[in-house]
């Protein structure tokens, strides 16, 4: 133990002799790990948040397809679906998208039944008439509107449409409601010019979660022109968007990994003449190959473990305390209405361990291998740098 501590002391002294070089390696190494870990933490947090909330999404969403494209669905379909055993509430949804050419933003318009009891996460009142609406924070920001004011839109006939803002969704629901304008079903059907008896899609409640796939099969058999989307598929979509293989992971992860590979390659392709001389002197004064390798292993561990811990700490602070300012532009893309939200700090231990293996081990290997090649050569040749 004492021997190892002494070798560690020697390794630290050896690193301190080349402090600027080693400090710059630690800075670059920590930055690379911080970028990788930030992407991991951000995507994992978004995935966990989405999956935790979407558990209460509709069990089945039934769309109608015509010519392979999504088409309005007859409300009469809901009466057929209702008769399937195990099915609870069947609700035709009216919703759609609206491009606001004045502010160059896209909104999502959603219809609900008037006179529903008050919504959670809404400040203001619920809808009581067709001339009222509830809007998300993003819409309120874009339109410079607030509760009590009128929201002005252009309907499908090109005529101005005005509704009183009866409430706004609270900021902590931004991830779900930022671009949302909620109107009554009747008002929205009129706004979009939808024919009577049609809806955008139908949501289906299934009493027993294990019967969802079976009910979906029955819907498909009874109504062959429909596409039932089950809750499992919705959850699966979010799992695959934010998993290891997602586009974002691939783009950022690959470039960071390439940067790290260059760093490791530079180390692995050889050690400096000064380091060779140092190994030669150590061997000449009686150190054996095992001691030299332990020394170099310690040097690798000191740099990689320090960088790893610093990188992970930086990533956590960046993502969860500062709300990922460096990654948000990547997520935002061309979205004009991008929600402001706080990420829930979920940490996946498995991902952190994998990241550790992917970064610490290659660096240590690239430190030890060239040193081993020098350590097994004759001390005189090593000192001469041959």
């Amino acid at each position, binding site marked *: 133990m004492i021997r190892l*501590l002494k070798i560690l*002391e020697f390794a*630290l*002294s050896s690193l*301190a002799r080349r402090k600027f070089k080693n400090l710059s390696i630690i800075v670059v190494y920590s930055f690379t790990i911080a970028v990788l870990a930030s992407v991991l933490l951000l995507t994992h947090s978004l995935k966990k948040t*989405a999956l*935790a*909330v*979407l558990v209460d*999404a*509709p069990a089945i969403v039934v*769309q109608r397809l015509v010519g*392979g*494209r999504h088409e309005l669905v007859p409300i009469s379909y809901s009466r057929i679906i209702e008769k399937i055993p195990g099915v609870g509430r069947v*609700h035709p949804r009216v919703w759609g998208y609206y491009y606001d050419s004045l502010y160059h933003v*896209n909104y*999502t318009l959603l219809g*609900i039944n008037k006179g529903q009891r008050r*919504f*959670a996460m809404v400040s203001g009142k619920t809808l009581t008439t067709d001339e009222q609406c509830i809007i*998300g924070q*993003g819409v309120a920001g874009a339109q410079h509107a607030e509760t009590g004011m009128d929201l002005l839109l252009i309907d499908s006939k090109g005529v101005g449409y005005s509704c009183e803002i009866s409430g706004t*969704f609270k900021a*902590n*629901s931004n*991830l*779900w*409601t930022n*671009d949302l304008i909620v109107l009554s079903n009747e008002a929205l059907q009129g706004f979009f010019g939808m024919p009577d008896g049609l809806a955008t*899609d139908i*949501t289906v409640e299934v009493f027993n979660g294990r019967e*969802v*796939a079976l009910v979906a*099969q029955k819907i*498909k058999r009874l109504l*062959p022109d429909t596409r*039932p*989307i089950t809750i499992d*598929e919705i959850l699966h979509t*979010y799992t695959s*968007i934010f998993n290891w293989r*997602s*586009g*974002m992971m691939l*783009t950022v992860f690959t470039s960071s990994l390439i940067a790290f590979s260059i760093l490791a390659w530079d180390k692995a392709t050889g050690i400096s003449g000064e380091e060779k001389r140092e190994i030669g002197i150590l061997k000449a004064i009686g150190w054996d190959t095992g001691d030299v390798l332990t020394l170099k292993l310690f040097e690798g561990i000191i740099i990689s*473990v*320090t960088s790893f*811990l*610093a990188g992970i*700490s930086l990533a*956590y*602070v960046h993502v*969860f305390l500062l709300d990922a300012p460096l990654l948000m532009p990547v997520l935002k*893309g*061309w*979205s004009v209405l991008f*929600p402001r939200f706080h990420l*829930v*700090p979920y*940490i996946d231990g498995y991902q952190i361990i994998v990241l550790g293996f992917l970064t610490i081990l290659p660096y240590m290997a690239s430190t030890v291998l060239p040193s081993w090649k020098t350590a097994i050569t004759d001390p005189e040749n090593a000192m001469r740098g041959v």
Partner: protein
Amino acid sequence: MRRTSCFLGIIALFLVHLALLSLHSRRVQKLWRENELPETRKLVHRLALTDVALWTEARYTRNPALADFFTPFQDFPAAFEHFPAGSIIAPTLPAVDSRLSIDTTTGRTRQ
């Protein structure tokens, strides 16, 4: 052994910092689960929402869970994506077991 103590001290500080961050994570998660999650789930349930409002550029980025199967190829196969979100949402979402198809000869459904 001065340098060793100093180095081990720095590592210990990092570990303590990470332990504190982990505690912070658990605490914020607990608060979110107790205060915000039930309300958000209630809202999502009542409005029957299926997607997060992250990408509002196009219908297939706003509601990826409900998009058409061929959405990534709506211009032409292997077309460059218009929107940056297209590089975040993988272009091919692998099918899951519950995808349905109809056997037209027998009328049976299979999973």
